[in-house]
């Protein structure tokens, strides 16, 4: 068993559109240890969902480029043909709770049927009774009463439906679970409840999570590491404990100073301007136009530098540090 569960190198996902290629995921590299949670944060449209789709190979038709390495437990799963990927990886080793999942349940099927079917498909040697026992176990873990299994989605509140989709993602006992904005549509109390549930799963089963969110406060409940995306690129990755107080990329710092806090009074600032289009983005640093630290060098594309505490930053301010080279 590798300590490193996931290693992504130079991952690209470009979409074809009439106006030109959309560089939604552009040369993204990162590593994730088993049992840890990586939160991916960044503005709307920066490529968070595209990153998760690229990892799970859930691709739309208009793909223009899809390349790089995705090494899961030592094996490059990018090299797997589709039928092997479907049999061994998707939902079995990597599962996902998609954005707005609570509205994605099939309205005419009982919750039980929606959860047990994929389980039985992926575990041929499991009979229905064993499957049912496993589903019930998942319901207990996410904190849903058993009799809800026999209900239809519309009979559940939003928070309960969201927990059902998490049970669905976990039922095959995957090693990696990608959660795309799992709580942003939920109430404060329901949200807090859900974070408790995820935390318990993380502690009890050692599940590895990628948590996609734009809510950094909520992310801090679960995240061991934070990755910041900006305009299709991963511009910073660092341990959570350093990120909130000592992020290094100018965008990350600005992002943090726009987050309101309940317990502490601080001056909120916003980042003027807008992120660039992902069609023909600037060739230099993509944040340059909005960056108050910009200097001549920034018109070239910055490499990623390694800072202390295992912090990686794609920014020219850190040229005195060692450059990170990927495979």
């Amino acid at each position, binding site marked *: 068993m590798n300590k490193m569960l996931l290693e992504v190198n130079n991952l690209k996902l470009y979409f074809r559109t009439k106006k030109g290629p959309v560089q939604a995921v552009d040369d993204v590299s990162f590593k994730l240890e088993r049992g840890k949670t990586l939160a991916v944060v960044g503005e709307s449209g920066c490529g968070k969902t595209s990153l998760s789709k690229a990892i799970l190979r859930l691709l739309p038709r208009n793909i223009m480029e899809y390349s790089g390495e995705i090494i899961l437990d030592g094996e490059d799963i990018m090299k797997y043909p589709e039928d092997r990927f479907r049999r061994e990886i998707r939902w079995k080793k990597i599962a996902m709770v998609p954005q707005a999942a609570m509205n994605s349940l099939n309205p005419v099927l009982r919750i039980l049927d929606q959860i047990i079917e994929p389980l039985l498909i992926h575990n041929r040697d499991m009979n229905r009774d064993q499957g049912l026992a496993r589903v019930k176990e998942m319901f207990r873990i996410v904190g849903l009463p058993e009799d809800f299994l026999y209900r239809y989605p519309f009979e559940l509140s939003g928070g309960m439906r969201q927990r059902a989709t998490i049970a669905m993602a976990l039922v095959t006992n995957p090693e990696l679970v990608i959660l795309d904005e799992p709580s942003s549509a939920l*109430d*404060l*109390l329901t949200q*807090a409840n859900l974070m408790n549930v995820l935390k318990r799963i993380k502690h009890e089963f050692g599940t590895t999570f990628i948590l996609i969110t734009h809510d950094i*406060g909520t992310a801090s409940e679960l995240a061991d590491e934070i990755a910041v995306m900006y305009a299709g690129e991963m511009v910073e990755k660092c341990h*959570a*404990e350093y990120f909130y107080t000592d992020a290094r990329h100018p965008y990350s710092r600005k992002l943090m100073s726009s987050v309101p806090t*309940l317990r502490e009074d601080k001056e909120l600032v916003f980042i003027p301007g807008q992120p660039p289009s992902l069609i023909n983005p600037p060739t230099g640093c993509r944040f340059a136009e909005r960056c108050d630290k910009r200097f001549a060098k920034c018109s070239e594309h910055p490499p990623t530098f390694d800072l202390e505490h295992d912090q990686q930053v794609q920014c020219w301010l850190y040229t005195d540090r060692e450059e990170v080279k990927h495979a």
Partner: protein
Amino acid sequence: MPDLAVDMRETLQNAERVPVLKAVDLHTWFEIRKFGFFKAGDVRALDGVDFELYQGETVSIVGESGCGKSTLARTILGLHRPTKGKLFFNGKDMAEFTKEDMKAYRASVGYIQQDPYGALPPFMTVKKILEEPLLINGVTDKNERQKRIQSVLEEVKLSPIEDFLPKFPHMLSGGQQQRLVIARAMILQPKMLVADEPVSMLDASVRVEILQLLRSLQEKHNLVIIYITHDLSTVRYFSERIFTMYGARIVEKAATASLLANPLHPYTQALFKATSDPDAANLKTFKEVPTGEPPSLMNPPKGCRFHPRCAKIIKGKCDRFEPPEFHIGDDQSVFCWLYEDQGKQ
């Protein structure tokens, strides 16, 4: 024992300041019919709230989904007729408004809806969107309309103006769309803005930008702003007072600083505990969350509506009798039996 000095002061203050808006025992119920014919009951979406709002203040309304925040907003806007109770605008009973009064009232209250994407008509340009309310409200002079559109776009910082005028909503970013919604709410030069979750769909940075914009408009025009949100962490930066709603009622009213320093109602306290500030220490602790679900508004619980979820419940009291309003200090009040001995009713 009644405190005479405080009472005197209040009387004096109130004599000087007529509230812009005053609600007395306000109820808005929705009838639910079975088979389109039999009455199955009422959703008591707003079930008895009282408050006064004064010129130049921002009041935040916080509470869980479905607790009646939008219903309160829409009732204030005159989009729902109260089932019971009264609303007074500048001292005048709105039930006695003539058609003209109502039209003038609507023009003096700007509305920023919950969802910016659904709020804008997709086939109208920015110019048309802003011109329409002016035409409806009888601004017949073309130059005057142009001038007002120009100045409102400057105020919300959609510039260069000429670039924006011919654009359709889908050509704008989320933040720009929301600024357009605010421009439309401001174009008739209202006295009051009702902002229903104006930033909940936006990114953190854009959120700050929009809230600061609203703040500056308020200061410049001395507006009353009703800011509805479920995000407690934004209120400290934005409002003078906070009302907490639970189960179609207001359960706590307080000056922002007092509420932040000392939330009184067990439900407000629960909201506080559930809110996460970015902090690595959060990894190591579980959140304290009240069990159960929000109450049914068709059949609300007896006594205090929070009692089935409340950890501090006084059995035999909270589950039987509705708590009245207890005043604590100068600028805070709470509907909760725990404060019976400390507060004055």
